[in-house]
């Protein structure tokens, strides 16, 4: 039990902080605090430029192995980077699907040619990826997906529809789950395809959300093609590849998210101090309770990382999604109560956009496994209750 950082780790923290301080300037300065979840459609081009700046600085692929071109950073270093990144209010990453999902999957399951072709542009921030998993009839039940790819000579020909695809509008590539097997059903006969977005058979229709933003899109595949060698992992055996990707321990990433949450809570506290809500005993009680749960969120994440170092997946790791999603939604609700009668009126300015927080957080308990599904998983996997 030792909750302190080593001298080397503190040096690394200083390096990150210094680099961010020196580079998050000029045109990039106005990106501070922008582009996170709920705001992903803001300054997209500029954030791609920032991704490339990160790449030049060697800060992309932090968790990737050195063979893959990454930095091979330890989990603690990843935590430090993400915490400093959030504290500096650096923008939401345009390359997160490539760095966090596609890259690790290609590194684990891809051919040498795929590695050579796809990894470097992710690290450089020159190719943006989106994820083609969810479908209209395959939400919580991913295995109900219906998109189909049929072999035609040297190509796969793809027909179907994906939904909730973030950054689809600006991505060069999509990581598509499609049925390729003859008698394919549920988990069988699915393959993972790498598909170019800029081709005639692909149509992207942005989805406007209740926040008014359009961060996601529907992606229609209507005879889109991709070469046969753009399958990751075995043909018809893509389910395991996809699950590996989903299960790929987000590791340090939740700690970066928590630093974002801290920024949000701090902003809310400032509003409460300014408008007098900080004198309301009920508001005080709830702010304190949220602060406590935020602290604990970080602690549980650190426990998970320490167990990860030992090669264990402890049961407390399985509560992460449910815990933060519920916390964030509670923060959004409290934000409105802090505003009081002013909750009915939208305010100007992004920094204090409590309404965006309030609305966006309704999605947190839905995407990436609803709270209901998360509880089922906890009961069945962490507690061994019968299915």
């Amino acid at each position: 039990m030792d909750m302190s950082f080593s001298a080397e780790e503190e040096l690394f923290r200083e390096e990150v902080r210094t680099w961010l301080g020196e580079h998050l300037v000029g045109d990039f300065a106005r990106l501070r605090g922008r582009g996170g979840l709920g705001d992903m459609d803001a300054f997209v081009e500029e954030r791609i430029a920032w991704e490339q700046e990160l790449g030049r600085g060697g800060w992309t692929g932090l968790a990737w192995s050195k063979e893959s071109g990454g930095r091979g950073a330890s989990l603690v270093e990843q935590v430090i980077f993400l915490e400093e990144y959030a504290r500096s209010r650096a923008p939401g990453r345009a390359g997160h699907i490539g760095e966090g999902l596609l890259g690790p999957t290609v590194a684990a399951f891809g051919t040498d040619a795929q590695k050579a072709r796809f990894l470097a542009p992710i690290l450089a921030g020159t190719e943006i990826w989106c994820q083609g998993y969810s479908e209209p009839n395959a939400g919580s039940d991913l295995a109900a997906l219906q998109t189909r790819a049929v072999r035609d000579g040297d190509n796969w020909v793809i027909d179907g529809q994906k939904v909730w695809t973030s950054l689809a509008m600006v991505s060069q590539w999509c990581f598509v789950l499609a049925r390729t097997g003859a008698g394919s059903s549920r988990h069988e006969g699915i393959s993972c395809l790498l598909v170019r977005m800029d081709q005639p058979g692909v149509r992207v229709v942005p989805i406007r959300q209740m926040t008014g933003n359009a961060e996601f899109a529907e992606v229609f595949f209507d005879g889109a093609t991709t070469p046969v060698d753009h399958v990751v992992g075995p043909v018809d055996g893509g389910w395991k590849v996809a699950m590996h990707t989903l299960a790929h321990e987000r590791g340090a990433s939740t700690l970066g998210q928590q630093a974002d949450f801290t920024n949000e809570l701090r902003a809310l506290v400032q509003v409460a101090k300014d408008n007098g809500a900080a004198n309301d005993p009920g508001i005080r009680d709830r702010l304190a309770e949220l602060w406590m749960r935020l602290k604990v969120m970080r602690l549980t994440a650190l426990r998970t990382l320490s167990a990860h170092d030992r090669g264990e997946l402890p049961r407390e790791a399985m509560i992460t999604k449910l815990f933060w999603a519920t916390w964030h939604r509670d923060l959004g609700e409290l934000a409105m109560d802090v505003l009081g009668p002013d909750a009915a009126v939208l305010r100007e300015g992004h920094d204090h956009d409590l309404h965006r927080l309030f609305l966006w957080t309704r999605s947190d308990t839905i995407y990436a496994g609803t709270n209901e599904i998360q509880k089922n998983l906890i009961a069945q996997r962490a507690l061994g209750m019968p299915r």
Partner: protein
Amino acid sequence: MKFALSDEQISLRDAARAFLAELPGPHAMTEQDGAYNADAWSRIVGEQGWTSILIPADHGGWGFGRMEMAVVLEEAGRKLTPSPLFSTVALGVTAIDTLGSDAQKAEHLAAIAGGATATLADQGSVTAQRDGDGWLLSGEAVRVIDGDTAEILVVWTNAGAFVVPGDAVQRARVPGLDTTRPLATLRFDGLRVSDEARLPGADLERVRLSAGLLLAAEQVGGAEDVLDVTVDYTKVRKQFGKPIGSFQAIQHACADMLVLVESARSAVWYAAWAMDVGAPDAELAVRTAKALASDAYFRCAGSAIQLHGGIGFTWEHVCHLHFKRARAGMALLGEPSVHRAAVAAAMLDGDSAWT
């Protein structure tokens, strides 16, 4: 002892429901940058006469009670009907009828029965100063419902309420959480009004309670609609090979919603009756109704989004319109915590035993 809608009230409800189904929905208004559909409004006034419900017969109205108004507003809340109905009847008519002189009622209530819109501006910092035989109004009123379009404005000041023509005031729509019910800021820049514009009544709290009750009625309708929409969706949406409505967690969430809806409805109906007959517990009954209906609507709308999954989060779906209206309405005419504090004072601070 009969706690149920009368046959006449049931007919009124059914007629309202049928009529409202023909009107343009809330999305139309949201896409029209918040402008009400003038045709719909003229049909509400002309065909249905709903603005006349609360107006006494002496002044050209129907002289019905809050119970009848609540029945209609429950239906309007259900369909999120965009119109100045709520502001006109719950704020305008109530303020003038409660605070006005006979002459003022005769003038303004008749105008409303004839189709004029009205609202109440009671939040902000408007002051009235004597100026010869008239008054000068200065300052700002905020969060005025339909304040940018109302033809008749009742404005509350340090010297009581004044009724002024809406277009005499500088006014601007403010962006609101609820895109189906405009809010406005009004600026009074030394507006001169005659002494006849001043309403003699002083009981603003009664006006706010009455309006809060009617808002609660709307909220019950809204809460029931999101429940209905959600139950319908869970019967057809399939995951893991069966309708999600067969999952126990979904069933329990819907059951919780029903408890909230029916409880709030009981509270609203009783409060309407209590105010109409002047029961001694009318104030506490209204506070109960507004607190429970606001909470019920908000929680139901939140559950509805959750149970719809991603689709409930999209702009095209009705869920978010309910959700936003629910949260905005919670903030108007007394948040639930404010009403609970008032009830607590009655329970705990007086010497008299509550019952």
